[in-house]
């Protein structure tokens, strides 16, 4: 079986805005066919990194190779094979959808036939609204047109920066399906950044988590997320007393107090029923007993402790 080649290779990438270090010594690889999730809190450096990958922002230092080519030296060649939606889908609102698509097709160096462009619009469900001015589009329609614009030149690498921003649940589901389809059916490599953990968890095959510009975790999502572990957030009628009790038990190693005063534990999934039973037997009235989203718990653990974790390392809180 042949090893997939890296489509994107980033080495020691850094970006300083004045004295502010937006991205700090970031290195990662995106392999062909990956849906590469790019996760971080707002301001973590995701968008800056993506903008550097798209040559919108000049790196302070570091090397970016895409399709095996140096981005600085082969910018045009690389960009002819890259499609991107960067944050909000801003388009020419005084033009209609078809005209927007045609302009960006021509800017991408292709002379598309009307039939082909209409087909592209049809794929994102806008064929019937192609002659309407974009200013009359809903946010979801603009996002879909933005994706059609990104895909108009049939790129091999698709970069989606916060693609679900401002979308309703149906729009979010559509984007999710589209990302899956791009990878599964069309064999494209996708980089998708988001601060919405659940979205990334559902589509990504590999994950990069950054915090304050630094990489804190990277790897295949199934290796990073251990389904045998869960994070529990517990709220009782007397959290102080509950904490005092738990600190004298074997649970104390895995326990912490949240900023809202609740109790959080990282425990084996199999231990959840016995833990619940123990609290009830000791007379604590449990008001909330929330197993957190696996990725959310993992993400919070990393971004709060700010340490790099290799796949397979211990990730207890």
């Amino acid at each position, binding site marked *: 079986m042949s090893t997939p080649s890296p489509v994107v290779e980033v080495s020691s990438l850094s970006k300083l805005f004045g004295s502010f270090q937006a991205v700090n010594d970031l290195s990662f690889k995106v392999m062909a066919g990956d849906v590469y999730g790019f996760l971080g809190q707002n301001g973590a450096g995701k968008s800056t990194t993506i903008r550097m990958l798209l040559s*919108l922002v*000049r790196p302070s230092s570091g090397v970016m190779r895409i399709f095996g080519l140096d981005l600085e030296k082969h910018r045009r060649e690389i960009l002819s094979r890259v499609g991107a939606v960067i944050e909000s889908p801003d388009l*020419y*609102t005084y033009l209609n959808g078809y*005209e927007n698509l045609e*302009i960006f097709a021509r800017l991408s160096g292709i002379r598309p036939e009307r039939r082909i462009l209409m087909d592209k619009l049809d794929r994102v469900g806008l064929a019937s609204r192609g002659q309407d001015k974009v200013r009359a589009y809903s946010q979801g329609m603009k996002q879909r047109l933005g994706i059609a614009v990104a895909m108009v030149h049939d790129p091999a690498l698709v970069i989606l920066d916060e693609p679900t921003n401002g979308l309703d649940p149906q729009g979010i589901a559509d984007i999710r399906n589209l990302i899956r389809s791009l990878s599964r059916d069309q064999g494209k490599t996708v980089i998708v950044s988001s601060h919405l953990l659940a979205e990334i968890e559902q589509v990504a095959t590999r994950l990069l988590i950054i915090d304050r510009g630094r990489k804190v975790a990277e790897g295949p999502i199934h290796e990073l997320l251990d389904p045998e572990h869960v994070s529990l957030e517990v709220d009782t009628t007397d959290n102080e007393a509950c904490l005092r009790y738990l600190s004298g038990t074997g649970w104390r190693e895995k326990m912490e107090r949240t900023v809202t005063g609740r109790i959080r534990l990282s425990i084996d999934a199999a231990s959840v029923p016995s833990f619940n039973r123990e609290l009830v037997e000791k007379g604590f009235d449990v008001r909330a007993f929330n197993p957190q989203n696996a990725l959310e718990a993992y993400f919070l653990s990393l971004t709060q402790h700010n340490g790099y974790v290799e796949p397979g390392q211990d990730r207890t809180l």
Partner: protein
Amino acid sequence: MWSLVRIELFKVFRKPRTYIAFVAVMAIVGLIQLGFYVDGKNYLSFGMQTLTESFDIEGKILNGYLMAYIILQTLLVHVPLLIALVAGDMISGEANMGTLRLLVTRPRSRQGLLMGKFLASCIYTVALLLWMAIWALGVSVLLFGADDMLILKSEVVTQVLKSDVLWRYVAAFGFATLSMITVAALAFLLSVFAENSIGPIITTMSIVIVFTILNTLNLPFFNTIKPYLFTTHMLGWKGFFDLSVNAAHEQVVGSIEHPGAIARSATILVAHVFLFYGAAVYFFKRKDILS
């Protein structure tokens, strides 16, 4: 490159604001023509009072050619604003809309994108000046008729023969176009630094106004810098209406009194265009697109 220019022109002429300039030129020229059509004879006879006391002037003094000359004088006042309206929006407008990042992520060089936009600005400027020429010259000749043109200056009166005037207007509008392309280049440069088009438009107009005021101040310090200000040379088109005189003190038909001065002004304007455009390319190539 031509495909980029076509795309930019398509965008420019699909924007409603583009047509503000054409409507404004039509309105301003129309108002001046209306004013002179209604009351021009009285106005001119008052202005030429001292001249008519000494000379017997025949023919139609208030004619289309004189009207075009009067209208061209207003060039410095309103046309820079109309030019900046579009040229100042070229980059900053895209940044404001968020489309700049889409443009820059296409497989085109930043320099190529900028050149396409700048050429589109220049074509728009040419179109606007052509439109002004049609109204200022063409419509004026239709309304007021054609005759020899008398230009009154403080010490001299220049008479340009009807048969000698048209080529001068072609040259004058050509020079005026160069002047306005200089303004467009300035607005274009300022557009690189801004995230909305108001800033470049206002700054361009402020620079034109301040430089024009400096031109009018007859102070030694300002006199040393005046030759280097582009506004000093923007009215160089007037030179096409100054005729040289021969040994018998007769005007020479088809001549220009100071062709060297016109050429120098044109060169300085061209230098400013290259300077402004070159600076725009320099900064745009290094600009982080964060909008």
